């Protein structure tokens, strides 16, 4: 596989380490009521779709960026790749508004 790194262009997937669903960016707040349930869902439950999946890859043997890759789990076609930090900042900004 080739991962289209947003800064470095297409890179061999072997350079990356895979983590899983990009929902892991949305860590629950420990202070909210029901935090234990929210963390339990966050840590353990996955949509695991057969189709388009947003997922986290770490450019471990590269520039050490975390990337959110949008990929089809049936065909492996990659539809998008963004720096995870940009995604996280955007969702933080959204949550702040």
């Amino acid at each position, binding site marked *: *596989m*080739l991962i289209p790194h947003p800064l470095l262009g*297409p890179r061999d997937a072997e350079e990356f*380490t895979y*983590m899983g669903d990009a929902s*892991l*960016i949305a*860590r629950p*707040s*420990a*202070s909210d009521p029901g*935090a*234990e349930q929210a*963390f*339990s869902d*966050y*840590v*353990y439950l996955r949509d695991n779709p057969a189709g388009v999946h947003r997922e*986290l890859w*770490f450019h*471990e043997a590269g520039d*050490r*960026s*975390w990337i959110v890759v949008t990929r089809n789990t049936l*065909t*492996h*076609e*990659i539809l998008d790749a963004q*720096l*995870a*930090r940009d*995604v*996280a*900042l955007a969702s*933080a900004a959204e949550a702040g508004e």
Partner: protein
Amino acid sequence: MSRLPGGLIDRGRTHSFTFDGKAYHGHPGDTLASALLANDVRLMGRSFKYHRPRGVFTSGSEEPNALVELGTGARREPNTRATVAEIYDGLVANSQNRFPSLSFDLMGVNDLFAPFFAAGFYYKTFMWPASFWEKVYEPIIRRAAGLGSLSMDADPDAYDKGFLHCDILVIGAGPAGLAAALTAARAGAQVILADEDFRLGGRLLSETHRLDDAPAQNWIESLEAEFDGLPKLRVMRRTTVFGAYDHGVYGAVERVADHLPDAGTGVRQTLWRITAKRTVLAAGAHERHIPFANNDRPGIMLAGAMRAYANRWAVSAADKIAVFTNNDDGHRTAIDLAAKGVEVAAVVDTRSWAKSRGDYPFYPGATVSNARGRTGLVSIDINYAGGTERLECGALGVSGGWNANVHLASHHRARPVWREDILSFVPSGHGGPPGLSAAGAATGRATTHAALNDGARVAAVALSDLGIDALLPDLPKAEDEPATSQPYWHVPGKGRAWVDFQNDVTVKDIELAHKENMRPVEHLKRWTTLGMATDQGKTANVTALAIMASLTGKPIAKTGTTIFRPPYTGVSISVLGGGDSGQNFRPRRLTPTHVWAAENGAEFVEAGQWLRAQYYRQPGETDARTSVDREAAAVRSGVGICDVTTLGKIDVQGADAGAFLDRLYCNAMASLPVGKVRYGLMLREDGFAYDDGTCARLGEDHYVVTTTTANAGLVYRNMEFSRQCLWPNLDLQLISTTDAWAQIAVAGPESRTLLSRVVDGVDLSNQAFGFMACRELTVCGGLRARLFRVSFSGELAYEIAVPSRYGNALMTQLMEVGADLGVTPYGTEALGVLRIEKGHAAGPEINGQTTAQMLGLGGMVSRKKDAIGSVMSRREGLVGDKRKLVGFVPVDRQKRIVAGSHLFSLGARHATETDEGWITSACHSPALDSFIALGFLENGSQRLGEVIVAANPLEGSQVSVRVASPHFVDPEGARQRA
């Protein structure tokens, strides 16, 4: 049989080779199969199940029968297809899967019992008595099965791996592939043309077709000359593209030296990972056969192969041949062989309407119904409306039509579609590897004219996708005769008619599978083993499923194929490994003091990729424990030094560094004063402990985190995840500096004295630089360094870090200036002893299954702040786990406790239900002169003093142990604060 005229062999040179010990001669350009045929050898192998005598059946990589062991000694390669093995001078080949010899094989007795060995028979018997399966039945089956044999010596050859990138990858150098490569290369694209054969030309090499009224070879040679002048075109002969992977990545194997008597110092084969923007699959087509009774006699082969042997290799399997066909193409074999002077005894055509196309005895509307000749064809029976006729001949060419070679186009589990008009599956054009398009015979456009033009057209479309303008080249005028064929799948009859030769699957087996309801193609395959031999059924599968379709009454299109999987043809495990075996299996990381350690008697041990000094053997020390005890004792009484560079080191800098670390460690770090170090424990988000280490604050905005050796990469990855994904608004940066700093532990009561001799003007007194202090400084007259007063041993101790390249020098210097103090280097074993004596948890305790509470560190999990894992650590299952880390001393102090023992109350039965914990770490303690251990025990911290049992039934031992505090040495911690 002497050679026929013509052919693409170099008659001016001769190669000698042996087969089953007998010497033969061939010419450059020969394959082992063609050379054996030229020496009148028709019998080349034995089948898998019935050990039937077999001859060569094809002229290419789809060969099911002519498999040999090639080479000798450690280079022996089993199951090599004689049809693709180029001969070289001195080649040694032997037949396989026979005993004692190819012509007389005792296992041939299986054939007599064939009725008992019908499809799936072994699922129905060999069940009584149960113990007989492993003891009696299975050993017999295993010995009889298998094909060739490995030498079981290490492969002595070298292999390599490389990466290639191109705009257009062309797979196959037949007419379509050549035209595609020409089109793309002339357009200026980066092109790779790969073919499994050692000559370019594909099927053109085996036909007498003329291009522009000249021999096809002329055109091929002119292309080769042009290709030589095109620097962006890479022609790869002897290269099989074996698999299509994601995003345009293809696996290929180049057989660099298999055709040479001696690879010399070079590599034998190279694995290529080719990344192509577009791919043209021009893999041609494979001929299929028509099963009839005893159609596996040596001398019976595909009609196209018979023609290839005559045209390309100038050999015929016999002086007198016949052809059995259901299509026009079969007639070409008769015409070509007759032109070479071979007697054509008959052309038997299943089509009653077919016309003769040459001067040979012709049997339209007829079939071949039987064949005779156990080790070589003697005669065939021809069946026609008027009766049956026996005809003597030494070889028979069979043509049942051609299957487009859709293998690679189907590698992404794409399903090819059946075209009734050409009686072939072809790529459907969707669902296959993106960017790959088939051209020529591989997609059913099989005349030479169609293949040439299709190759150029498909390449031009691919180029235009890439924004490259291409002109279609002027292609030579070529034959364009439409193939007419009749759907005719097997000759009905009483005898056994083979469909899959190698695995001995007959028409009857398919009928039995149908009767037993093994009808889906996957059940058919698995029940009968159809298509599971080394050829993956390239000459068998379509015929078999057509027969099944006729039995079920379903159309072939609905019956479908099994799944095409890589590799296209067999690939040696050696070359897939790319040569990284032996010591090169994984990178080896050496510590900065490695050279010094090696010179000073260190025994090394693997710690992940690192090699670390395990202990330093001194003269007279014969066992490891003596050395380890000496080293550990030296640390307790004097001073020892140990390279701890392998611990992960992560620099954390920025205004929010403290806030960040507060969220990573379960305990607080923001409150750590500058110039201080704190022990820290990290949890996973699921609440379990996963790593520990120290965190030092060198400046207001600057921390240094250390991790365990094993988790250095993982912790860094997780920290980057936290920084980039969880808290992107925090102001900080991270960098791993594990390799940048050589770090040496200096431990023992004399450590301060020793270090004072190397640091530049820094007061190391307890008042100035107390326990858990840290600072930057210089050593040895100006070398920048970092000093941490931390202790893993429980003694007064420090860790000093200098830039990596000075690690060896610092070690030497410490040894030199500390000679009078008796400074002793110690390795990982003594390190382990010292930490067990002190009760520090390490890898065996923090193994990912244990919690802070179990480790006795529950109090560190702050409830005042949110950190990774803190919420989940409060779940009932974790809180309710009452196992605690405690120490153990054997009641008899000289009795050894072994790690991995399980713990039981005295008198309890030893079983899973009564299991109360386990020993994690154990050693001999020189400080206590006793064996000691750490482990997790149910309610352990409340059971100090209780005698329990550490049981190790695996090695038949058990020992009574007293539960103790895990802090065996200096539990108050006075020494490390001294």
